[in-house]
């Protein structure tokens, strides 16, 4: 397994995380239309970075960098990665980032319609998930792991819990993205969506909590599984606190003269931490599928080496 491939995949995942932070800053600063044209900015590659242009064009520059990194990753995997399905995942990541770029342009051209903006925010998280997955699949710990841990066939399997948690987190991310893009900083958030997102937080907490508890109770000696479970739990707790802080600062935002730094910082942190919770859960899920086998059924993890 190529260490260089894994390290580069990690670099792309980290760069994507920073891109998510940059994108969240665009929304929190209400800078989405600070540059009214696309793909150029005021007809240039490098406009003057004043006011909200700094956030919008800065986001575009980071996005372009991530796009280039993804091209390199896809080629790198094609050349150095022996597993065909991982190569395909690299090309899929490239396809996703191209669609994401086009969605970003579409949001500007169509003046930020809610569905397109929410889709752009959701796809950002899914692309991040893909880069994290590639980093996981190219890691030594993944290739060295073997499907040797058995789980009792009775009761709900940890695999099922992981997949359910992942799906619920995705729904919660969609709700969060729709909520964020449904109102600018100087408008009150719509109550229905707000209640739905808060309800989603409770459901995700229960689901991920039960999942992590299942891993920690049933496989407490397997650090390969317990570490991501603990990280996911810790991040979930932080995310809940950030969510409360985001609600308080965001509720007060319309009464200010402009988007204020505490609101911006907390809402951006809430988006970023949400991405990390998603990443930790996919890591846990992939590892569970890698090493867990159900005792009374035919053995074999879903994901090959």
């Amino acid at each position, binding site marked *: 397994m190529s260490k260089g491939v894994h390290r580069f995949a990690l670099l792309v995942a980290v760069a994507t995380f920073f891109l998510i932070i940059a994108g969240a800053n665009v929304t929190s600063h209400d800078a989405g239309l600070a*540059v009214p*044209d696309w793909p150029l900015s005021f007809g240039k590659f490098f406009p003057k970075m004043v006011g909200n242009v700094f956030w919008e064009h800065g986001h575009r520059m980071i996005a372009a960098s991530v796009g280039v990194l993804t091209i390199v990753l896809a080629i790198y995997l094609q050349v150095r990665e022996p597993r065909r399905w991982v190569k395909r995942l690299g090309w899929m990541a490239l396809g996703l980032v191209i669609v994401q770029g086009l969605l970003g342009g579409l949001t500007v051209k169509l003046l930020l319609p809610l569905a397109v903006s929410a889709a752009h925010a959701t796809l950002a998280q899914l692309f991040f998930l893909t880069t994290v997955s590639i980093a996981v699949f190219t890691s030594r710990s993944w290739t060295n792991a073997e499907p040797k841990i058995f789980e009792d066939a009775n009761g709900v399997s940890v695999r099922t819990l992981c997949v359910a948690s992942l799906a619920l987190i995705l729904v919660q991310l969609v709700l969060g993205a729709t909520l964020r893009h449904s109102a600018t900083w100087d408008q009150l958030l719509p109550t229905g969506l707000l209640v739905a997102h808060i309800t989603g937080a409770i459901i995700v907490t229960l689901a991920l909590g039960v999942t992590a508890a299942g891993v920690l109770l049933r496989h407490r000696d397997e650090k390969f599984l317990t570490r991501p479970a603990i990280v996911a739990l810790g991040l979930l707790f932080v995310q809940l606190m950030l969510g409360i802080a985001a609600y308080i600062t965001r509720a007060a935002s319309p009464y200010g003269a402009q988007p204020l730094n505490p609101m911006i910082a907390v809402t951006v942190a809430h988006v970023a931490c949400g991405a990390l919770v998603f990443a930790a859960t996919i890591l846990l899920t992939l590892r569970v599928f890698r090493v867990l086998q159900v005792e009374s059924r035919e053995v074999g993890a879903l994901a090959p080496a």
Partner: protein
Amino acid sequence: MFSKRAGLWLGLIATLGLLSLGSSCNNKGGGDEGAGTEGGGAAYASKGDEGTISGTIAFTGTAPENPKIDTSADAQCASKNPNLTAETWAVKDGKVANTFVYIKDGTLADGKKIGDLTGWPNMPSSATLDQNGCHYKPHVMGVVAKEEINITNSDPTTHNIHFTPAKNPDWNQSQPNGAAPMKHSLNTAEVMVPVKCNQHPWMKAYIGVMKHPFFAVSAENGSFTITGVPPGKYTVVAWHEAAAGPGTEKTMEVTVPAKGSATADFSFGASAGLQGQPSSLPMLAAIEFPMLHK
């Protein structure tokens, strides 16, 4: 050829793509909306007996303070207008500026409804909205539907003027310093159309779009006058912006005599100034669960 996993991802991408295409349909505004646009309806014939509606907008109680604006994100703004504050409440000696006052509906002395008439004399042909000192001048203005709005940039920085109406189409344009005035019009009556700058998020203006010319914006001393009003009974509304939400409206019935004047004084109190202000800790309403009986 593709694994199940790849198929799932492709399906997700396709779904997102379809969603974005579907959302690109814009149902807003458009010239065919007859209800709010000029055109249609009997023409008004002046009898030379028009009057006026005038009054004063007052504020009772202590006016809320307008917060200072941090303009450091754009050095040109900080340099040109270092003491910029929000303009939500422009109160001086108990009088309120920037209140949009208009005739909402009513009946003329001859029985005709004001909303059914067109061809009003003295329809304004153009208005100007200037970006000056990194805020809009005027902060509140009124236009008639299809009236030409000249947008100018008097600042040494680029602005991005963004109309965000509910009934008219969105409009978003960039205007560098020194650029020629831009022209735009709003074809559908709407109270009020918020205007913002996406580069300088503190910049706000409001435009009232009317079918007729019977509107005014209160001056610094709170006074306003609406001229050329045919004799009749009218519902007059005074709109003032709120920190959040659609703004506060006060309504009054007035009778305009032939060649006479009607007075409409409005007052906004401390409750309007604090309208919608959050409590120290905004909380959601408690969720009640049904009692379970044995």
